């Protein structure tokens, strides 16, 4: 086993175990913490795949931004109520069976497909994508994918407006 593989197994194990913790913990703060662990290990796997830029964005935006927001909201709402809830509802057996079927299907397909013809041979240009990852992504973003980038700016504006109008308290002057 190469070092690469050992590293992958470790990261994958951490990701899966903490993902399991995310969905089984009673306390949402614990869930959030385990989700952060998952996110970190996925970022590690990105590094393994030579996606350095995404690994950095994953840590900065996901962990540093989104998860902090999650924790913020968890703290804001009443934790007492939240933590004493029942953990699972009656649908869990159905969910488990459905997901097990889904997982077996995915797994079967991916293992089988990999051996036969799952993936096309390397089709991309013969450039080395492992070098200067951020630079190449930046170029692509502003050249080939300029339009989605612009639409994303509108999306973020909408998100700002939405967060302000939904979470703002109703002022007396609004009546």
């Amino acid at each position, binding site marked *: 086993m190469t070092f690469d593989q050992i590293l992958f197994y470790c990261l994958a194990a951490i990701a899966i175990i903490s993902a399991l913790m*995310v*969905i089984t913990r009673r306390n949402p703060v614990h869930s959030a913490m385990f989700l952060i662990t998952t996110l970190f290990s*996925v970022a590690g796997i990105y590094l393994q795949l030579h996606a350095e830029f995404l690994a950095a964005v994953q840590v900065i935006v996901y962990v540093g931004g989104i998860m902090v*927001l999650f924790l913020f909201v968890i703290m*804001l709402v009443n934790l007492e*109520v*939240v933590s004493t809830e029942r953990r699972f509802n009656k649908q869990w057996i159905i969910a488990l069976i459905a997901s097990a079927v*889904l997982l077996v299907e995915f797994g079967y397909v991916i293992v089988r497909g990999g051996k036969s013809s*799952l993936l096309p041979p390397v089709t991309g240009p013969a450039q080395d994508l492992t070098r200067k990852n951020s630079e190449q992504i930046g170029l692509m973003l502003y050249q080939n994918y300029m339009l989605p980038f612009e639409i994303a700016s509108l999306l973020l504006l909408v998100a700002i407006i939405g967060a302000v109008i939904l979470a703002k308290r109703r002022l007396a002057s609004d009546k």
Partner: protein
Amino acid sequence: MVPLNYFLILAAILFCLGVIGFVMKRNLITMFMSIELMLNSVNLTFVAFSRHINVLSGQIFVFFVMVIAAAEAAVGLAIIVAFYRNRESLNVDEVDRMKL
């Protein structure tokens, strides 16, 4: 070099855990976190494919998925806060006026 299938299977497992978490969990915030788990597994799939076929567009897609996840998180959590202001619990079973 780790084979592509390993990454895909890891992503499939994470995706299924996300689905299980979403369907099973009765807490709004953890349901939302399960969705984040699903998005992460999708991102992992994209990056793995992108590396395998040596095309960068998969990583661009992941970048946009992260942007969208951030926007959704902002709006979704604002909705949860607004909901919470009018109701005192986050238990989904209490969204009782309408059946989920």
